[in-house]
């Protein structure tokens, strides 16, 4: 394996590792931020109402401050991992930074100017402003911190969505890069809007599961029972809204992916040969020897839901869903008619034509040959949509890892379904059947244990969602425009390998430290 290949793999590994660590903390910040803001609002309302008994006011103040403390511990490490992600676009993906920096940089800058300053300023008020600001002002600061975190998520998801579905730009051969032509298209693309809603609502669900899980532990220990019940009430509502929102936006995501990234959808389902009325696989085991162009079965075993995939991806039980082979060979059926899309061999060919046209354009410009420039520009424009394919040697290189997309997708769906059931049940129990909280089977209280195990489930589910989104997009850094091998920096693999392990050590140590502090705070709560 040559050094370039190794450098690509280590750069990918480093970015993936940073993103996965970052995503351990960010959804908790987003979810817990909302929970704390709601709790403080309840506290503020009670405090400002002279008829509320002081014990009740104190109860909600205690609730707010406790969860705020955990929010603060988590916030710091989320910030630490976040800065690395931003800078890694430059350090490890320098070609990428130039090729699409004109579009991609703007959301990051706006995120800094608006969201980060908002978060960091009002975060300080949250923690150090209890005595210096009025109750209303402090409560507003807590909401603004939660809002700032969400705003930050908005802009980074705009950037990420653009990588999944690039819009609002043109390629400029004079500058050898893509340039933005519509900020509105970039900032408000349907992919970005949907992704934001999906990520935010799923983070609410995760934050809620965390609160319920910790509360479940108190219930199990018979400590702070009223505190735990109040926490579960707030978190239950947030979690229920969050998980329902996640399901709805997840459905929209599937439709978008089927339109914009059909290869990703095929990989998510391990679908090699498409069909009308395609089944959805509930769970299955992939055949590891399966190649896209052989006749082996794709699955060793599976549980299927008839026509489920057609319904999920096209909202039509009889719709055709193309498989990997169909996409590579350029086959699809739309409105009952078989149509030819551009097959991958042709895409590679046209990508190379586009790249050659770009070289010709530069040469013509050097010689001030305006006719040559016009011809090359026209050819480039005609084939630019397949520019990125020109970097591939053969079609196999354009297929994502099916196993790394299929399994996380199904794990996400199964665990997400558990979260839906659990959170709906939680709201029902805590508001209508409180006595069920103490229900025991063979001497063990059921609800607290289920609550405790749901927090790690939520994290695994959330991580799987990102694995599907990012690995399903591979080998593209930017869908159809730039594959990862064309996006890297000129740093040798040894350097990247070393920084990978330094970050791994740092992040792991800090994660252990964070968990230790969190557990101590939870255990020692007075």
């Amino acid at each position, binding site marked *: 394996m040559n050094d370039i290949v190794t450098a690509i793999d280590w750069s990918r590994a480093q970015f993936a590792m940073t993103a996965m660590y970052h995503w351990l903390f960010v959804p908790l910040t987003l979810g817990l931020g909302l929970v704390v803001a709601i709790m403080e609002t309840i506290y503020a309302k009670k405090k400002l109402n002279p008829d509320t008994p002081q014990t009740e006011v104190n109860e909600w103040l205690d609730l707010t401050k406790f969860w705020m403390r955990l929010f603060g511990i988590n916030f710091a490490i989320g910030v630490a991992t976040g800065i690395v992600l931003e800078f890694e676009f430059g350090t490890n993906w320098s070609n990428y930074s130039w090729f699409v920096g004109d579009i991609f940089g703007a959301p990051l800058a706006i995120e800094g100017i608006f969201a980060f300053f908002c978060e960091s300023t009002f975060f300080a008020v949250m923690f150090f402003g209890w005595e210096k600001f009025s109750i209303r002002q402090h409560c507003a600061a807590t909401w603004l911190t939660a809002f700032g975190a969400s705003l930050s998520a908005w802009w980074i998801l705009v950037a990420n969505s653009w990588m999944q579905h690039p819009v609002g730009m043109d390629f400029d051969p004079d500058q050898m890069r893509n340039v933005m032509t519509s900020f509105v298209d970039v900032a408000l693309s349907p992919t970005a809007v949907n992704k934001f809603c999906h990520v935010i609502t799923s983070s609410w669900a995760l934050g809620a599961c965390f609160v319920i899980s910790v509360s479940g532990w108190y219930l199990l220990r018979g400590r702070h029972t009223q505190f735990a019940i109040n926490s579960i009430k707030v978190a239950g509502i947030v979690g229920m809204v969050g998980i329902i929102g996640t399901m709805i936006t997840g459905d929209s995501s599937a439709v978008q992916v089927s339109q914009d990234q059909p290869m990703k959808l095929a990989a998510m389902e391990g679908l090699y040969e498409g069909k009308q009325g395609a089944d959805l696989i509930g769970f299955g085991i992939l055949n590891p020897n399966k190649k896209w162009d052989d006749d082996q079965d794709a699955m060793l075993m599976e549980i299927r839901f008839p026509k489920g995939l057609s319904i999920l991806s096209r909202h039509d039980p009889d719709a055709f869903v193309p498989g990997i082979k169909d996409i590579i060979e350029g086959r699809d059926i739309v409105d009952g008619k078989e149509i030819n899309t551009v097959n991958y061999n042709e895409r590679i060919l046209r990508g190379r034509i586009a790249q050659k046209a770009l070289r010709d354009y530069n040469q013509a410009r050097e010689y001030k040959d305006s006719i040559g420039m016009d011809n090359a520009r026209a050819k480039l424009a005609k084939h630019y949509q397949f520019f990125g394919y020109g970097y591939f040697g053969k079609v196999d290189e354009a297929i994502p890892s099916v196993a790394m997309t299929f399994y996380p997708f199904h794990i996400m769906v199964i665990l997400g379904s558990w979260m839906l059931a659990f959170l709906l049940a939680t709201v029902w129990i805590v508001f209508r059947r409180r006595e069920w909280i103490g229900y025991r089977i063979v001497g063990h209280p059921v609800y607290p244990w289920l609550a405790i195990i749901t927090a790690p489930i939520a994290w695994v589910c959330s991580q799987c969602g990102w694995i599907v989104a990012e690995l399903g997009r591979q080998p593209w850094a930017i869908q159809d425009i730039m594959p990862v091998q064309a996006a890297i920096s000129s*740093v*040798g693999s040894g350097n990247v390998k070393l920084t990978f392990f330094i970050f791994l050590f740092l992040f792991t140590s800090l994660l252990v430290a964070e968990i230790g502090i969190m557990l101590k*705070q939870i255990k020692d709560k007075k």
Partner: protein
Amino acid sequence: MTYEFLQEYWWFLISVLGALLVFLMFVQGGQSLLLQKNINNRTREMLLNSIAHRWELTFTTLVTFGGAFFASFPLFYSTSFGGAYWVWMLILFTFVVQAVSYKYRNADGNRLGRETYDKFLIANGIIAPVLLGGAVCTFFYGSDFTVQMDNLTKDPMTTGNVISTWGQYHGLEVLLNWRIVCFGVMVLFLTRIQALMWFINQIDDNDIQEWSRRQIIINTAVFLVLFLVSIYALLTATGLKTVDIHQFQIIRYRYLLNMVQIPAALVAFLVGTLLVLGGIVWTILNTRFRNGIWLTGTGTVLVVLALFWIAGYNDTPYYPSCTDINSSLTIYNSSSSRFTLETMSYVSLAIPFVFAYIAWVWYKLVK
């Protein structure tokens, strides 16, 4: 708005963010002072408490500085970050550990121990100013890179297609350039002086006030030597002048000429220097004077602004290439498109409002 105006406007905004960042690095300067042996536990906690709630602002300014550079001058982001790999990575490592240290060092259940986090803070306090100062100094003395746009159409798997290629040391070569090292260490001592001024301003404790004033004298002595050497080296340095968008010629005393030819930079530099020195002298001589931080802070911002201006304006490439001068980056050949700069310029109109609410909140917090 013309394209040139937008490019110059964004360089101005970058210089404002850079200047504020250098000022706000008094947090790092304060952390580096933990290394002093004669600090007892009580003093250390008081010093750290006074800067503890400011680190987020410095951190956020750094992130915004990076984001703004990415949005407005992506070719610099691509070239410098991807090339001076180790410089940026070392900066990142120390900021990662700094971000958690204030929150975790005294927390119950802190398994790494307070001392570990204090070492993290010291590492960040020393390394970040030196390397960020050094990175900014490469705006004058250049780096070891070439930019070849045509590479984009080459085969990435065999020949490689990276447009910005660097020497094998990936930024560590700056450690061999005495002028850059001198500049970086100067920035470190400046941040230490600012931190001491901050302590005097914020902490009502006679011992700390007295200790800080003594420390200011020692740190100023070192800072002054480094400052004079750095400025002399800079003003006598050879630089580049833009002939065409990717063609440059070598000019002697480039930055001295820029200082003279850009009156705003000259005024900012002179006034800034006077404010920094005035703040220091006044603080040393008058033991009841506690507002030196605002004089030196303003002075620092002005001096850094002047340095950014002479680095990037007046047809000067702000990122000279030592390997191939025609690969040097100017604000005109490395910027975003006109559309993006214009769009971002509208966004930038909100910056004063952002500063206003930050100022109001901090005023309320420290009142």
